[in-house]
């Protein structure tokens, strides 16, 4: 068997090739957990245009802050949304039509009732006019 000369380089079996780290990969996300957003200072926000994320420790709000082009820090606010589960609906919560809030449903129903009443009054007026014109024709067809 011919001897395969690998030169001076010797690599033990199973050795892992060193990986070249991507110098442009982000080491992590800037930001931290805070008790209140008033704790956040300008130095906490990186000046390279990337966002820093600040999470309130009670998870009630997350703010993403970055320096804007005009030198101000602009916060983007995220608040949690809890999708309603059937088991989580309390007895105090009343459901209106099509799952809408009951107050909203009541408002719409009142409007519909109002519109209906007006339509009925208009119908009455037209029907009275029609009755009067029929009587006139019966009395005096010509």
């Amino acid at each position: 068997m011919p001897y395969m000369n690998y030169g001076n380089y010797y690599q033990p079996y199973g050795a892992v090739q060193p990986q070249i780290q991507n110098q442009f990969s982000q080491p992590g996300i800037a930001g931290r957990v805070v008790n209140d957003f008033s704790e956040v200072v300008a130095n906490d926000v990186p000046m390279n245009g990337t966002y820093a994320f600040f999470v309130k420790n009670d998870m009630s709000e997350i703010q993403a802050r970055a320096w804007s082009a005009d030198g101000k820090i602009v916060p983007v606010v995220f608040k949690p949304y809890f999708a309603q589960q059937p088991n989580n609906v309390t007895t105090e919560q009343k459901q209106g039509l099509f799952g809408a809030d009951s107050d909203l449903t009541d408002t719409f129903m009142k409007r519909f009732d109002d519109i209906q009443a007006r339509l009925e009054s208009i119908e009455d007026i037209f029907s009275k006019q029609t009755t009067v014109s029929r009587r006139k024709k019966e009395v005096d067809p010509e």
Partner: protein
Amino acid sequence: MNPLLSMYQALSKNPQQFMKNMANNNMITGNPMAMNTLKMMQNGDAKGLEQMARNLCKERGVDADQMLEQMKRQLGIN
């Protein structure tokens, strides 16, 4: 050497070359604030630059006028 001073010297020697170098710098082009600064410098928008500087000072809780005085002293401007 003070980076601010070296920047001022580069700017005063050859402003156009300085602008060109900045525009080709990846760190500048990826940064909205830096790009806006460069744009205002190229357009000669001194008021815009001043307002940006004041906004920066306000965000950091620094008095802009005091900062200006300090810079003037550092750069030897009266």
